[in-house]
């Protein structure tokens, strides 16, 4: 095996050499001549003559061992321990837009609890006509919806406020995932409990809390709750994973991940917010003068190039290069993504894999012919409100250096002649 892979490498180098020698522009040159026969082709391989695994070898399939690096990773020293902590989605190694549940980032405040469907109860109380308790089975009998949304932690890219900190899109932008959720709209459940007696919707709130020790209670304006929130019991077609709130979590499209309460156990309609720990002491954005913004719920338009990036250097040498990344906006659909190769002096529009969907991730591609030149790669997202993703400098001018949360600045990767990429800030 060692032999054949060496030869394979040699033939690739030969291809690149051949391509460079012709000096031809991208698109006008076909595959170069192979220098030697590739034994992977000319020799019968074990996997071709023998047999593979039978069905049911893995009743629930995991990625093949060669993909073992594509996993969530934490940064141990960021938090006091691993129970109230965070890890990061390996966005650098994924493509498309859907995040598989098994590698979608986790953020727990008191650990991921195990809660059986049989033991699950959801209470709706407060200013409703009748306070109700639902079992899990009850929830499955309501009319159902399915929609795709991104969930971004408010602290995603938070480390980067002060400077370029962590070297990889997984670590700088990996507190995000994008899944197709199935469940019931929150409106459906609230109307079942009755909204007749409470009066105007405008000045009301819902308080949502989880069944874990953190409770993670958050106050959400009732207007938002009735507009597009849902309670989900499936993600990407299968039951939620325990780390994402099995059996039921709240979905708050476009708003910070902390509000998507996991193991959701209670929804209370009230005439004011609770001002809980997670909406006062945390998830608030301190400005340069020491005052802090609260109720900064929406996640503004943002994008990042996932490859090339520090964990995804260019290994194939000069020639065709696919630049790709993700874009999303909590205020609507992504309409366009621009990419700059020179640190923001000039920009070109990238190709969206599909038209943007509101509050869901978009995938973009830019195909270039890289000739080994130094690059300062940046991407910039636009959404259907006309908003253009700002630079770090623009954000700092408004907010200072201590905001921590809601950092949606343009990210720069410096790519050198060897194809290695590093996280930098530029002039």
């Amino acid at each position, binding site marked *: 095996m060692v032999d054949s892979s060496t030869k394979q490498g040699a033939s690739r180098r030969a291809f690149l050499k051949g391509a460079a020698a012709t000096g031809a522009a991208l698109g006008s040159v076909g595959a170069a001549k192979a220098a030697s026969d590739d034994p992977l082709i000319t020799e019968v391989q074990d996997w071709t003559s023998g047999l593979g695994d039978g069905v049911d070898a893995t009743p629930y399939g995991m990625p093949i061992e060669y993909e073992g690096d594509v996993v969530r990773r934490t940064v141990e*020293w960021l938090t*006091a321990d691993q129970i*109230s902590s965070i890890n990061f989605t390996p966005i650098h190694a994924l493509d498309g837009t859907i995040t598989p549940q098994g590698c979608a980032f986790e953020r727990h405040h*008191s650990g991921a609890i195990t809660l059986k469907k049989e033991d699950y109860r959801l*209470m*709706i*109380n407060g200013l409703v006509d*009748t306070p*109700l*308790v639902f*079992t899990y089975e*009850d929830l499955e*009998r309501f009319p159902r*919806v*399915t929609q795709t949304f991104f969930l971004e932690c408010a602290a995603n890219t938070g480390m980067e406020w002060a400077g*370029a*900190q*962590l*070297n990889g899109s997984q670590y700088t932008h990996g507190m995000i995932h994008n899944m197709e959720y199935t469940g019931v*709209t929150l409106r459906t459940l609230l109307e*079942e409990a*009755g909204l007749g007696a409470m009066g105007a919707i*405008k*000045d009301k709130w819902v308080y949502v*809390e989880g069944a874990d*020790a953190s409770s993670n*209670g958050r106050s959400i*304006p009732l*207007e938002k709750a009735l507009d*597009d929130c849902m309670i989900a019991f499936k993600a990407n077609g299968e039951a939620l994973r325990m780390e994402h709130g099995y059996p039921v979590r709240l979905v708050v499209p*476009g708003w910070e991940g902390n509000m998507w309460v996991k193991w959701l156990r*209670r929804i*209370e309609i009230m005439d004011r917010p609770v*001002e*809980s*720990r997670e909406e006062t*002491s945390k998830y608030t954005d*301190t400005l*340069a*003068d020491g*005052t*802090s913004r*609260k*109720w900064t719920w929406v996640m503004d338009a943002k994008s990042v190039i996932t490859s090339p990036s520090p964990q995804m250097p260019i290994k194939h040498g000069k020639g065709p290069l696919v630049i790709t990344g993700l874009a999303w906006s909590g*205020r*609507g659909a992504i309409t366009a993504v621009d990419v700059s190769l020179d640190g923001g*002096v000039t*920009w070109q529009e990238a190709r969206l894999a599909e038209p943007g969907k*509101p*509050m869901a991730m978009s995938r973009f591609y830019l195909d270039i012919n890289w000739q080994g030149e130094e690059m*300062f790669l940046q991407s*910039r997202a636009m959404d259907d409100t*006309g908003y*253009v993703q*700002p630079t770090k400098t623009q954000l700092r001018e*408004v907010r200072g250096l201590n905001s921590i949360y809601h950092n949606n600045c343009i990210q720069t990767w410096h790519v050198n002649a060897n194809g290695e990429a590093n996280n*930098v*800030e*530029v*002039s």
Partner: protein
Amino acid sequence: MSKFPKLLIATAVASLTAAPVMAEKLGLGRQATEAEIAAWNLDVFPDGSNLPDGQGDVLTGEEVFAEHCAACHGDFAEGAGNWPKLAGGVDTLADEDPLKTVGSYWPYLSTSFDYVRRSMPFGGAQTMSNDDVYAIVAYILYSNDLVDEDFTLSKETFMSVEMPNSDGFIVDGREETEYGAFTNRCMEGCKPEVVKITKNVVFPGDPNAGAVSSETAATEVAPSEEAPTEAIEAAVTFDADLAEKGAKVFKKCKACHKVGEGAKNGAGPILNGIWGRQAAAVDGFKYSKPMKALGETGAVWNEETLSGYLANPRKYLKGTKMSFAGLKKEKDMAAILEFLKANSQ
């Protein structure tokens, strides 16, 4: 500050495309009882409404805090390790490195009470009496110089406490300060000249690399030629099924204690190899005085000593730092002992 934010719901287009329309209620679920609502509805509001009966003074709070909170938050609420500091930091919010604590940052006292009552202590949420919660919050206020040492916190005194940063918050102003400004989609000549690097990455490699290499170094040094014999002598037989049940019981412990491969000391010492080991013998862990003294007597952790200690830690060893109420069920005790045995192979 307006009482209510102006909400921009940009989402109506997205939301209702596939939403079901129901003509009437489905009659699912059942009415919640008053006792059920009372059990779960612990909300306390900034004006103190919905506070429970009870009270607690600063001096009681100091004791309760030492018992339940100090392992992570420090004796004086100054914080330990990476755990949150609860005191200090007033007037630092505009500094380069602000210190955000209950005293310097939290706008409402209700938030502290609400959070401590629901979620603390870490790993033992909702096990404290309301009096103890009042006392702890009183002590946190005292640590922040916000009340005197003879202060008693209760429903009646709650609103007399002034929080230093109560006027320090404004409602999200991005619509006014940012959205109009962030609209320029420049395509050419967007910067006057060729860009230069102004900051390089602070952690260039794998951010965990430092930690990993030092661990590897430690394990590489550890094994000696005698190790295999020692291991054989120390081998203990254990019931794997019971140990597995013990792993579940261990959830009560794991906020402070780590076990298994790569485990390190946390708020409590690492428990690998505890079975048959002398008390207070983990290197680098700061034990309480009584625990050190116990170790000096040659006491060893075995079925008898561990079950005695874990049943009621503070009764077994007065002055222990371990803030654990104790295992009540015999079943749980048997399982956790088996689990600890299994982790001492």
